[in-house]
């Protein structure tokens, strides 16, 4: 009853908590809905096969990419023979995927990132893609093309495979995506078979067939129904992984910031209600009952915010999904469906977050002595409690230590050290604000101390005497500005540093890169380019790179996963399904790019006829002129192109996170402003009686809000710039060229202006409201 009445009676002061929780739950519900809707689906082109038999799905050492271990052509044929004898099975189709791309008018068509659009003709049956004209390809030089390409039957066109460009004839048109070659040609381009599709006789039960298939294919995975989603294309898995990273970042930010908002608003709440809590203690509420009242309020506000957030999140999920698709972080086919489970999870998280946030406030409330009810005026508590000193001091020490370490840390650790240093220093500044701010206020207002008007005197005195209140409003400003400066500065510095370093390394060299294709063919790249492929060892899938070397070297992390050391022999399966024994000649330290497993190039090419080079350095532009799907760039252009996708994503992530955090701290700023104005009601009344016009009162309030934002901005910059300088130094060492610190001024300025606007607006609104009824 008391909690309910308290919530009803103080709706205004709980509005901040409610807004924070609503936003948090909406974000969590939205991200979960998008995530649940973007879960792997059975690829359309395999959907007509009720039972799929495939090799084990092997994750790589990072757990990100994965691959299906293939069978060799001979093993696949033997297995297909056994499976086709099972009752209910009409036919067994070995499914092969490889790089094949049609070129129309000199321009490669289709998805530039798809390196597995090519299949043998028989695979078309697995997706029930019908032949809508012509005949199936039966010999080399014949293809069946997607009817959507607009090609005519009998047309001559260019086909790109990993070998190079070749002239082919379109013999058939199929109603479905992909490029279909004769089964013979497919077997030469992709000898290995990762999947066998089982087409069933009418009336056969997939579950029964699957049981029989399991017995006939020991060690294989037999998938029916939803299980077949494990065979989604690697490209899609990567896209989803990227999208998931953004969703996770948004959801975790939502959780942490909501806890922060709830904790700070509830803390202020408890301070403002000391007398009332004391009264409750006096008339017989036990400390436990007081704690339950505070937590009960949190529960009520959490439930209300959760409900509002669930609605908002469900509405926002559709647009959010479309945005992810547009940003290239989700597959184009993504349909966000309203679902109950993700929304329930979000609401539960919201309520949990409210309780966690209110826990500390509840403990403090329980400690309010009954005598608090007897005191005539609320006395401002000590500026800093012991806990705050300890936490602030600890954060400062940690930040200082980390900042010092950015100078001495290994190059690749510096970025992280700088990040953590800035976070710790931001926390320290927010925690120690009650002691840091008064001297700063004195410093800033020193030139004005002789001013004639009452304004500077009042603003100065107000900010100085209520150090804790000033700190409470400054803390979210420090956090917002610090966060925005740190993230935007980090991304813009990295955006400059990496291409500059890359360009310096390749100075004077021209580089051939794919143009509208997923990679370079052997004809374009020549025999010296790096050839990426994938091998399987044990349960693991390993990124392999064919280079001009005779020796096998492996990254330390992969060596650990394989439990192998220099001199050991490991058995690996190549994409063609054949096995080789490799003797490890060298183990390289982790952290360098593209070095999981380095193999002789011709070994990779022998076992992976469809491998594509990503780029080829030192190519002669004139020699490559006229080849489809190739472009020759100089070092600078190449470096920019290489990093453009990374920096696009980095910038996207940073922008989304900065926008979110500004929105959140906006809530905190508005809330603290409103609550502090509420607590100053008597002061305002005195001011009015002493002859301040309403306009003057509002001006003082605005000036005070601006002063607080200015101080918060200064501290926010002060805690992030030194670690950023350390990071720039670390980057310079890493990439080998001088790196200047780049602050992103537009983002920084926009953040400060937005914060200042919100603070002033909130302060004016709250002051106007508080001075409306000038009784205490």
């Amino acid at each position, binding site marked *: 009853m008391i909690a309910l009445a308290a919530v009803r009676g103080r709706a205004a002061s709980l509005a901040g908590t409610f807004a924070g929780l609503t936003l948090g739950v909406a974000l969590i519900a939205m991200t979960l809905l998008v995530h649940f809707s973007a879960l792997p689906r059975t690829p359309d082109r395999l959907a007509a096969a009720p039972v799929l038999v495939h090799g084990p799905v092997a994750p790589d050492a990072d757990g990100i990419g994965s691959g299906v271990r293939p069978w060799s052509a001979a093993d696949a044929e033997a297995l297909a023979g056994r499976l086709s004898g099972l009752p209910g099975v009409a036919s067994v189709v070995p499914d092969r995927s490889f790089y094949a791309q049609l070129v129309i008018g000199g321009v490669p068509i289709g998805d530039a990132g798809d390196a597995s659009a090519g299949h043998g003709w028989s695979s078309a049956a697995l997706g029930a893609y019908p032949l809508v004209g012509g005949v199936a390809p039966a010999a080399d030089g014949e293809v069946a093309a997607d009817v959507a390409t607009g090609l005519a039957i009998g047309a001559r066109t260019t086909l790109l495979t990993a070998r190079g460009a070749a002239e082919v004839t379109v013999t058939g048109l199929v109603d479905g995506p992909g490029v279909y070659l004769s089964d013979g040609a497919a077997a030469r381009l992709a000898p290995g078979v990762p999947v066998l599709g089982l087409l069933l006789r009418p009336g056969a039960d997939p579950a029964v067939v699957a049981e029989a298939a399991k017995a006939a294919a020991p060690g294989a995975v037999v998938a029916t129904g939803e299980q077949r989603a494990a065979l989604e294309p690697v490209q899609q898995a990567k896209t989803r992984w990227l999208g998931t990273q953004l969703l996770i970042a948004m959801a975790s930010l939502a959780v942490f910031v909501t806890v922060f908002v709830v904790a700070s608003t509830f803390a202020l709440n408890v301070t403002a209600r000391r007398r009332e809590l004391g009264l*409750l*203690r006096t008339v017989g*509420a036990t*400390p436990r009952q007081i704690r339950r009242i505070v937590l009960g309020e949190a529960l009520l506000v959490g439930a209300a915010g959760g409900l509002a957030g669930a609605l908002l999140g469900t509405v926002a999920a559709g647009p959010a999904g479309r945005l992810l698709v547009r940003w290239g972080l989700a597959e184009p086919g993504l349909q966000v469906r309203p679902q109950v489970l993700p929304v329930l999870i979000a609401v539960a998280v919201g309520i949990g977050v409210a309780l966690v946030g209110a826990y500390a406030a509840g403990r403090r409330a329980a400690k309010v002595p009954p*005598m608090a009810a*007897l005191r005539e005026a609320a006395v401002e508590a000590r500026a800093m409690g012991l806990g705050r000193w300890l936490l602030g001091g600890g954060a400062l020490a940690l930040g200082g230590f980390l900042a010092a370490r950015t100078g001495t840390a290994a190059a690749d650790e510096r970025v992280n050290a700088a990040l953590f240093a800035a976070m710790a220093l931001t926390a320290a500044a927010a925690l120690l604000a009650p002691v840091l701010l008064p001297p700063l206020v004195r410093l800033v207002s020193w030139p004005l101390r002789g001013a004639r008007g009452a304004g500077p005197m009042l603003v100065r005195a107000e900010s100085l005497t209520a150090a804790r209140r000033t700190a409470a409003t400054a803390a979210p400003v420090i956090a917002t500005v610090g966060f925005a400066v740190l993230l935007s500065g980090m991304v813009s510095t990295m955006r400059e540093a990496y291409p500059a370093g890359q360009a310096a390394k390749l100075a004077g060299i021209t580089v051939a890169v794919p143009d509208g294709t997923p990679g370079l063919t052997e004809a374009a790249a020549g025999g010296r380019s790096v050839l990426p492929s994938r091998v399987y060892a044990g349960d693991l899938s390993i990124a392999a790179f064919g280079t001009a070397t005779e020796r096998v070297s492996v990254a330390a992390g992969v060596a650990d996963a394989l439990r192998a050391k220099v001199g050991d022999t490991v058995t690996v399966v190549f994409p063609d399904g054949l096995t080789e024994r490799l003797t490890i000649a060298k183990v390289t330290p982790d952290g360098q790019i593209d070095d999981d497993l380095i193999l002789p190039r011709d070994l990779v090419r022998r076992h992976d006829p469809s491998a594509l080079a990503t780029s080829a350095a030192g190519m002669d532009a004139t020699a490559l002129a006229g080849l489809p799907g190739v472009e020759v760039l100089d070092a600078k252009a190449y470096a920019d192109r290489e990093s453009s996708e990374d920096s696009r994503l980095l910038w996207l992530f940073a922008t989304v996170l900065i926008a979110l955090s500004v929105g959140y701290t906006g809530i905190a700023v508005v809330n603290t402003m409103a609550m502090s104005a509420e607590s100053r009601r008597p002061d305002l009344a005195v001011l009015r009686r002493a002859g301040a016009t309403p306009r003057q009162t509002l001006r003082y309030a605005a000036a005070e809000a601006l002063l607080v934002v200015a101080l918060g901005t200064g501290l926010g910059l002060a805690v992030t710039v030194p670690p950023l300088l350390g990071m720039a130094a670390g980057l310079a060492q890493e990439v080998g060229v001088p790196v200047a610190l780049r602050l992103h001024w537009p983002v920084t300025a926009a953040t400060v202006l937005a914060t200042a606007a919100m603070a002033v607006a909130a302060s004016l609104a709250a002051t106007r409201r508080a001075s409306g009824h000038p009784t205490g």
Partner: protein
Amino acid sequence: MRGTGRAGGLDRMTITHSPVAEAVGLSGAGKVYGTGAQAVTALDDLTLAFPTGTFTAVMGPSGSGKSTLLQCAAGLDRLTSGTVRVGGVDLGGLSEQRRTVLRRERIGFVFQAFNLVASLTAAQNVELPLRLAGRRPAAAAVRAALGEVGLADRAAHRPSELSGGQQQRVAIARALITRPDVVFADEPTGALDTAASREVLGLLRAAVDGHGQTVVMVTHDPVAASYADEVVFLRDGRVADRLGGPARAPGRAEQIAGLMARLEQR
């Protein structure tokens, strides 16, 4: 004789071993704030009893220890030395939890201001102690309590919709609803005009006369003190003077004012 409407009476009998003539008693009570050179003695070996069914006013110059006396006697603060008994139970040995429960069941409070929880209605404020004790208040009892202070028609109003005097009357109804051993009132009329003060004091007087309640009131107002059966004057943490009844005798307020003035001159 126990009143029939007295909730929890059986429990109370198991604690109270003997019938008590004093509702609250302090013996050898001492209270020192701070330590060493900064130590301030607020109560100095004070022995005092507030008999059941009486109205006592506690007066004294500021710093005389009257507020400390009230806080310690009510179990809001702990003594440095000596004992306090409320309804025969020694508060010294009780934990914070037990003291809170005892306060809830045996002591009522009326302060100078801010007696009510702003978000609760008058009726809800009155039933607060019962609810905190986990009991479901009977609507009739709450109505009757508000009726006794003349606010039956204000049950659904929130404190902001009540005058200062009405708020104090709600506070009295709340203090009395548990039929406590003692009601402590700390300057209950300090923020009221004369007419409202008279109403509030009359209600406290009626609680003593009509229901046999015990009231201990700290005040600096001789008129308020004139409603009490006995006035206790404190100075430097000791009893400096006492003035017996009868209450509201003609010229009593002037008499009290004279005693106060003498006390402050000494």
